[in-house]
């Protein structure tokens, strides 16, 4: 480790440890006060709502509860504060020292690149609950413009257990609803019991999204979709099933048995998918035990690697023991370059100049 970097990491480690100890104390206090208060607030809300059915002025208490709720929401969560401090203040400094060509963004995603990747259909971005992007790294590796982001896709799915619980609760509340209707006939129809499914937001995909300039110039599209993902990837690009794409065979057993390859031009696809690139993809599949989605579109390469690897993970319970604490972070930073070099995207055989 270079001396200058070591000095920076040592100083940062000391500051970070001080911050961690302070926030950890507050974290304990937070768990003892704010969390129980939040729980009590929820119970009080239910009590006030149910009580208000019989005595409507009781609902005025909701204003007070709302004010308390707003007040509590302003209390920062120590774990999140620590997380944000590391990502917003510590990591940019380390990036600057380890790889000055990189720019680090704690949160965010390149939506344009994601939609250009061809992995998703037009309705994906409308239907999806939300896409979360974290640890976005942009920059240049050996003259290759790159953009890495840790992505997670969330959508709403029916929670059958909660739905069943809600159904039982609704049945229990039904007599109250009838009584309410009998005593408040002049109020008109105001249903207080509603039947329906309870939906939870679930994370259904997590991985690293990579976007880079490809080392060859080509016009057209090539998309490699893992076969096991293709069958249940209901959001897969409409375009793939359009007339302009055709399925092609790849002269490699691992790729042909695990992937469906679609292209707009077979000869161009073979030009893009050179034997050396296919070997690099096979190595990723075999060593990492993952099946990335890969596409090549108009001189760009897009890849999502589905893994649970948490880049630049932050744990408030983990002591910051000097510069060694940042070893994993530095390895994460260097791993981006390794991917580019592994795919040999830095070896350009074509130049516009």
């Amino acid at each position, binding site marked *: 480790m270079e001396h200058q970097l070591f000095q920076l990491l040592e100083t940062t480690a000391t500051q970070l440890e001080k911050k961690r100890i302070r926030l950890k104390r507050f974290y304990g206090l937070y768990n003892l006060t704010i969390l129980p208060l939040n729980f009590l607030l929820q119970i009080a809300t239910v009590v006030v709502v149910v009580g208000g059915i019989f005595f409507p002025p009781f609902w005025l208490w909701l204003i007070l509860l709302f004010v308390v709720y707003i007040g509590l929401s302003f209390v920062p969560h120590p774990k999140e504060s620590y997380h944000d401090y590391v990502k917003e203040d510590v990591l940019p400094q380390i990036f600057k020292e380890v790889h000055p060509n990189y720019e680090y963004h704690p949160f965010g995603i390149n939506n344009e690149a994601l939609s250009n990747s061809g992995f998703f259909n037009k309705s994906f971005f409308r239907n999806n609950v939300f896409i979360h992007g974290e640890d976005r790294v942009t920059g240049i590796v050996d003259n290759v413009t790159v953009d890495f982001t840790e992505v997670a896709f969330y959508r709403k799915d029916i929670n059958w257990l909660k739905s069943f619980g809600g159904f039982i609760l609704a049945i229990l509340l039904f007599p109250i609803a009838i009584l309410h209707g009998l005593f408040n006939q002049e109020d008109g129809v105001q249903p207080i019991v509603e039947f329906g499914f309870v939906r939870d937001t679930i994370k259904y995909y997590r991985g690293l999204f990579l976007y880079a300039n490809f080392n*060859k110039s080509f016009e057209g599209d090539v998309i490699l979709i893992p076969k096991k993902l293709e069958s249940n990837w209901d959001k897969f690009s409409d375009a793939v099933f359009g007339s302009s794409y055709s399925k*092609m*065979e790849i*002269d490699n057993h691992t790729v042909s048995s695990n992937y469906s390859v679609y292209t707009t031009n*077979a*000869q*161009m*696809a*073979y*030009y893009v998918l*050179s034997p050396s690139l296919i070997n690099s993809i096979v190595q990723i599949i075999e060593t990492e035990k993952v099946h990335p989605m890969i596409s090549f579109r108009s001189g760009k390469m897009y890849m999502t690697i589905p893994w649970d690897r948490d880049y630049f993970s932050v744990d408030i319970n983990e002591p910051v023991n000097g510069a060694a604490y940042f070893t994993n972070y530095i390895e994460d930073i260097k791993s981006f370059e390794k991917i580019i070099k592994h795919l040999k995207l830095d070896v350009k*055989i*074509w*130049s516009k100049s």
Partner: protein
Amino acid sequence: MKNYLDLKSFENMIQLQRTLRVMEEQINSAIRAYNSNVLVLNDKIVSISTIVLAAYLEYQPAICFEARESENSDPNVSFLFR
């Protein structure tokens, strides 16, 4: 700082190397595309679902392309420098 000559010929040489490399890759991809289609055709000719139609249309198995020894040699570009 010394003022070295800006050798344009060096750039041209790099450009030539790139062009040759691209051409080689293009030829290689065309061969792979052709051979892939040959394999698909040969498979279809003998597969149960299409064997009758293939026999009726008198389709014959094709042969994969293989470059001859002389075609595998490096291209001679010396005439470009005369």
